[in-house]
């Protein structure tokens, strides 16, 4: 079977699964890079597709894309698989790599600041361009290599994040501090992501509607690198500021859009991100039935 056919058949199976299963209204934040402290509901699976279009000075613009499969294992543990790729215009399309992420909620109750611990293993190519996080001395110039050259480099990395998140008068404020270690002999790298967002209406409408303001959330996020162990700070790092908006549809779909702007000469000038997500309720039960178990 050719790869094109495999893609078509795979997409049809995925679409059939998504449309054939029941969705629940996901009350998602609009962030694309920043994490808040909410985990996936136990037994639910969220399938997400994201795109990033990025401009590149002195090189070709690119379109990077990834799929996320996020599963709520328990009320305090969410696990997630990422698969990504990218197309560099006037060059080629390549597979970017795999990420396996886990988030743990250590505290039972809500507090003014709510911590979540994040651990991720990444097996990614040098050609990976999704900019899911910005770390160390990541700069625009890193993306100048051709795909043929960049894909030869393979990185095994562990990424750790401390996610802090608070809710104040309808606003959510989230702060992420990240540390990344390439498992070869490279120094620890650091980065950050900050976000603030709010639903457009705090009270729900008595009508069932897709366009009610409570279904929309808007905000802003900022993220960037903080150097590495030997040169910690803002020197030769890139930073972005991005307004974000999300639309949570009653059918269980969530749409997100975020134009991002580079804040210095080391950053891509413009990033346009968008994503679509679908929450599948009771995925754990479906799998349990497949294994012959009833709840």
């Amino acid at each position, binding site marked *: 079977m050719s790869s094109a056919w495999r893609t078509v058949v795979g997409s049809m199976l995925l679409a059939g699964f998504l449309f054939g299963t029941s969705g629940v209204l996901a009350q998602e934040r609009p962030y694309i890079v920043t994490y808040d402290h909410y985990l996936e509901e136990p037994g639910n699976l969220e399938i997400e597709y994201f795109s990033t279009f990025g401009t590149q000075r002195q090189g070709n613009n690119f379109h990077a894309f990834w799929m996320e499969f996020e599963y709520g294992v328990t*009320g305090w543990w969410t696990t997630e698989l990422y698969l990504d790729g990218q197309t560099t215009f006037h060059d080629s399309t390549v597979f970017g790599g795999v990420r396996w992420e886990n988030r743990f909620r250590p505290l039972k109750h809500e507090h003014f600041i709510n911590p979540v611990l994040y651990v991720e293993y990444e097996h990614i190519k040098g050609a990976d361009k999704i900019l899911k996080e910005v770390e160390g001395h990541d700069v625009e110039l890193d993306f100048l290599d051709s795909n043929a050259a960049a894909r030869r480099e393979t990185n095994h990395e562990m990424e750790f994040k401390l996610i802090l998140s608070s809710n104040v008068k309808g606003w959510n404020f989230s702060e992420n501090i990240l540390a990344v270690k390439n498992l070869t002999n490279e120094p620890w790298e650091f980065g950050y992501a900050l976000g603030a967002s709010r639903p457009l209406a705090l009270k729900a409408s008595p009508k069932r509607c897709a366009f009610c303001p409570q279904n929309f959330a808007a905000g802003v996020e900022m993220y960037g690198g903080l150097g590495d162990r030997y040169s910690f700070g803002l020197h030769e790092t890139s930073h972005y500021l991005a307004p974000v908006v999300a639309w949570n549809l009653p059918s269980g779909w969530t749409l997100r859009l975020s134009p991002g702007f580079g804040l210095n000469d080391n950053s891509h000038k413009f990033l346009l991100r968008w994503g679509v997500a679908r929450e599948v309720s009771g995925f754990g039960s479906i799998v349990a039935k497949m294994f012959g178990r009833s709840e």
Partner: protein
Amino acid sequence: MKTSNKAAMAALAMCALLLAASQGLSQSRASETLVKHKDYFYAEIAKAPEKARQRLNPLETDHDAVTAGGNLFLQHCAECHGDSADGGRKGPSLRVQEIQGATPGALFWLLTNGVVRRGMPVWSKLPEPQRWQLVTYIKSLGVKSADAAAQSQQSNQ
């Protein structure tokens, strides 16, 4: 097989393993633990701090709160607690004395904090007015007789 394919296969295998393990964690003793979860869930409400328990529902007299809360309930809660809140696959009935006799403030506290170790997520992701709308709706349901609740719980399952 190329290294990237091997990595993808390894990741998929790891996910399948994880999924199977998570089934063990979340589902294996589901039927026997549901009863324990139910007790734990009802007991949790008694843990609401006095200050939280005394909070008044600012939307108690809002005419739209019951309807809006009903919509929110169907969107976020019915999956576990059943469409009529009589109890479902994962969540216990909310039409019992333990819940209906609780103060609005205690219910609001439970919604806000969830019962994370027993599978009920925190609902502070909903803005405060929406959580009060949910409380108004839940309180409007009243207590259902034990026989009727058991019947509808069976049909929900």
